[in-house]
């Protein structure tokens, strides 16, 4: 078994991020594969949360890992790797969105149901159909609602709700003060509450 293969086969929880980073800088590109596998879904989630488009999010997520790899030697260990890479993600996603300009249909369109579908006589999946409908409608509405938020508020709420980052970590990721994070979350949630108040 080669060194690269051995590293790839090593259980992820046995290697800390910093150990992997050291190996990558020492020339072991396969170790970077472990970091990518560890964070790919999280980075994709943040990118998707900001961009609201899966293909764009995937493209940005790949760019994030390429940019992070190139800049790994300059990564300062005074912050965690995930905070650093989240910051790259946020910057790239917002930059991507700024350049893109285009408004596209979202993947939730196909699950958005009209109210009269509740009386459909066709086969239904297991579970309470009324509840399922409510969840789908809520999902569709929340997606539309998130899209209306300014990028900084949207980013803050995604980092908080999806990634579970603390105010301090969000501030570090977004390059702002903790008070600013709290304010962005407050106004984002207030707007979401307003937009969602009729859903349930």
């Amino acid at each position, binding site marked *: 078994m080669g060194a690269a293969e051995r590293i790839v086969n090593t259980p992820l929880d046995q290697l800390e991020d910093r150990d992997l980073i050291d190996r990558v800088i020492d020339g072991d590109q396969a170790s*970077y594969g472990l970091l990518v596998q560890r964070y790919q879904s999280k980075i994709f989630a943040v990118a998707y949360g900001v961009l609201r488009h899966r293909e764009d999010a995937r493209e940005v997520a790949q760019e994030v890992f390429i940019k992070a790899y190139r800049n790994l030697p300059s990564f300062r260990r005074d912050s965690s790797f995930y905070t650093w890479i989240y910051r790259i993600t946020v910057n790239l996603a917002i930059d991507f969105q700024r350049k893109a300009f285009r408004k596209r249909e979202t993947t939730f369109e196909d699950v958005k149901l009209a109210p009269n579908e509740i009386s459909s006589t066709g086969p239904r999946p297991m579970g309470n159909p009324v509840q399922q409908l409510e969840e789908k409608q809520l999902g569709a509405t929340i997606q539309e609602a998130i899209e209306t938020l300014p990028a900084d508020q949207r980013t803050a709420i995604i980092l908080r*709700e999806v990634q579970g980052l603390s*105010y301090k970590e969000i501030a570090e990721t977004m390059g702002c003060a903790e008070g600013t994070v709290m304010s962005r979350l407050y106004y984002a949630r207030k707007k979401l509450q307003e937009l969602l108040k009729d859903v349930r």
Partner: protein
Amino acid sequence: MSMTNEERDQLIQRYYDGETLGNENSLAEGLLDQDPEARALLESLRTISGAIRTEVAMAVAEEDFSSFWTDVSERLPKGPLTLETGQDSARKAQAMADENLLAGEPQPIAAGGGFAWLRNLLNGPGLAVAGVAMCLVALFAPVWGGSDSALPIAGMDQTIEVESIDSPGAFVMVVQESNDVPAIVWVTETDEG
């Protein structure tokens, strides 16, 4: 203790996020015991969180990551990973500019290739005053020489040609630290066009 609705809502938000400080936690719990609106807000925060997490989780679950690393690895630079491998083009441009200066080649700022440090300093976001005619004054430069558009660089027998500079205001100080003898250049705006 009385508080405005906004203060109350922010307290409940911090409580929900686990970001309370000092006695805020007990204060929030007291509010939740007594104030139906505080309880409704907490429930609303839970609903929003659940909806956002579910929505994003669905998108992640539908994404196929099986070729993700392969796609990324194909685009990674080959060879040892050093700062040189990185994409710091500004650093490379700076190095090239320094080399060219030492070789005696004037660097036109407007061309963008040389003196990236100058362009980076002057070309910040929102700086939209383009093509402002500038008069350059070099502090620490031994002497002025050449025409109005030629500037001697301190410590070097070189000049740079300046056609235009984007600047947010009338005064800009540029400090070049990459050479042994630092050059400090004050840029002031004049009415001359």
